[in-house]
């Protein structure tokens, strides 16, 4: 009979329309921004620099090795390495990034900087409302804007952060043991601060 197919289809439309009042899986929209869906733990949007302790300038994990700058596919990271060294959160003397800029408008949220970083210094944030009315200065973030605490990292990616913390604690214990041994032997005049940058780093894989 002509029209039977159309009638069948309309029954389906009606089922979905009335069903949306009763079952959640037929009505999936959320009234953003009043209502928000919880974000997934794996969600990523834009990188940030992790620092340990209370002071972001002292605790920045980044040592300015420029690996992420080289590996970044759209080349949105700009780093200038410092001339001098200063102690990091662990107490080792390290280089630090004198300038660390990321261009928000160029970054494509691919996470490759996170994967290649041997110091667990750069991680992905889940913040996604980054729009600004200043398209030049407002979209070029310097290290003051990029630095976020390890507590923040633990909050947004709990599972991943726990793994990273465990790995770093293990490395720190190793370095401490070495320093202790060196201090006991006193064969080498090197101070604990002269540990080579990167000596305690392991590959992220």
């Amino acid at each position: 009979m002509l029209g039977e197919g159309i009638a069948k289809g309309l029954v389906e439309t009606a089922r979905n329309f009335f069903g949306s009042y009763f079952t959640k899986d037929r009505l999936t929209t959320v009234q953003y921004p009043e209502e928000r869906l919880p974000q997934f733990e794996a969600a990523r949007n834009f990188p940030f620099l992790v620092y340990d302790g209370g002071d972001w300038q002292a605790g920045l994990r980044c040592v300015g090795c420029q690996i992420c700058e080289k590996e970044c596919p759209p080349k949105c990271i700009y780093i200038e390495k410092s001339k001098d060294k200063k102690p990091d959160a662990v107490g080792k003397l390290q280089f630090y990034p004198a300038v660390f800029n990321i261009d928000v408008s160029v970054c494509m949220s691919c996470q490759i900087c996170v994967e290649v970083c041997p110091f667990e210094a750069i991680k992905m944030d889940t913040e996604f409302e980054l729009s600004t009315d200043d398209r030049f200065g407002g979209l070029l973030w310097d290290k003051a804007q990029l630095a976020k605490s390890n507590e923040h990292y633990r909050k947004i990616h709990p599972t991943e952060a726990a793994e990273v913390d465990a790995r770093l604690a293990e490395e720190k214990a190793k370095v401490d043991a070495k320093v202790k041994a060196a201090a006991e032997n006193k064969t080498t005049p090197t101070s604990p601060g002269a540990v080579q940058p990167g000596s305690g780093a392991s590959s992220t894989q």
Partner: protein
Amino acid sequence: MEMIAPEDQRTAQSAATAKSEDALLDISLGPHHPSTHGVFRMDVVLDGERVVKLKPVFGYLHRNHEKIAESVSYLASMPYTDRLDYMCSLTNNWAYALTVEKLAGIQVPERAEYIRVITAELTRLQNHASTIGFLMQEMGASGTPLMYAFREREIILDLFESLTGSRMMSNYMRFGGCRVDLPYGWLKQTEKVVAEFPRFLDEFERLLSSNEILLARTQGVGVLSKKLAIQGGITGPMLRASGVNYDIRKVDKYGIYDRFDFRVPIGEHGDVYDRFMIRLLEMRESLKILTQALRDITAGPIMDTKTKIRGFRPKAGEAYGRIESPKGELGFFLISDGSPQPYRYRVRPPSLINLTVLEDMCLGASVADTVVIFGTVDIVLGEVDR
């Protein structure tokens, strides 16, 4: 000047009218039109309502993907492959990873292979669902089928986001495995989605398959003959709708596709209706593969331990890897000269090659049908233009 008799004048006038009726009309469909799935232009010559000539014009979304890939490391091209066919980034990732693995001779752990199959088949589900939705939109069924399809697609994209961190730009696969392991509860959630998907397919079929308007608009429209499909190098659902049994999952058995029991749906007429039905049937076969993969997935490592992420340099050589992406044969051709960057990087995009027979299918069809025929080719301009 001679005097023209009133009769002659009348004849001259009617001749002029006849001429303007015969005159062909050049129009430009697109590039900024929703029915062109992006920025695609068709230079159409019309005789009345019928198409007599059609010239596809593309390149509006050209991003220099291949050349960029030759100046960055192998790894850095991976996020760019997401942006080829942005509806199915995970299959693009797989095709690229497969080619590099072939080039460098890397073995992929079993669990990673299963994850790849699961994500690729989920990609196929969401791609086919939204393709049919868009096709209905182009036929004038505004909204309803497309929104139903998008509702299901969103559920699958949620799975992708909880796994890869991003709904569409997944950047998930790596040479020798996958980037991260499945999060806690992901498999259970996927099993639930796969178990509930047939309900959507049944509803979708009841909504559309026997609809008289749809039958009238699609049956016998835009026929692609078997011979032309083979000669044109057409792949994917379009080729199978024309009656050719060719599916790279069966032919190459890449990854672990030889372990799954599934069938390849074949069309008969090669018209728009067959191309629409083939996608519905393929979704059911994908569900079969998913059920088996979710049942059989093993625990174990997800990355080949010998492969380095940074400083990856394959030996000099060349490789062509291909997979059955939801749109057809997606291939990557790589030449390595031993440096960290590929010497040559080439993509074989199914969308572009399937477009080459567009004129043959559209000749003699009306403008409204041209849009529908174009819709069944299922292209994404990110892949056509690269």
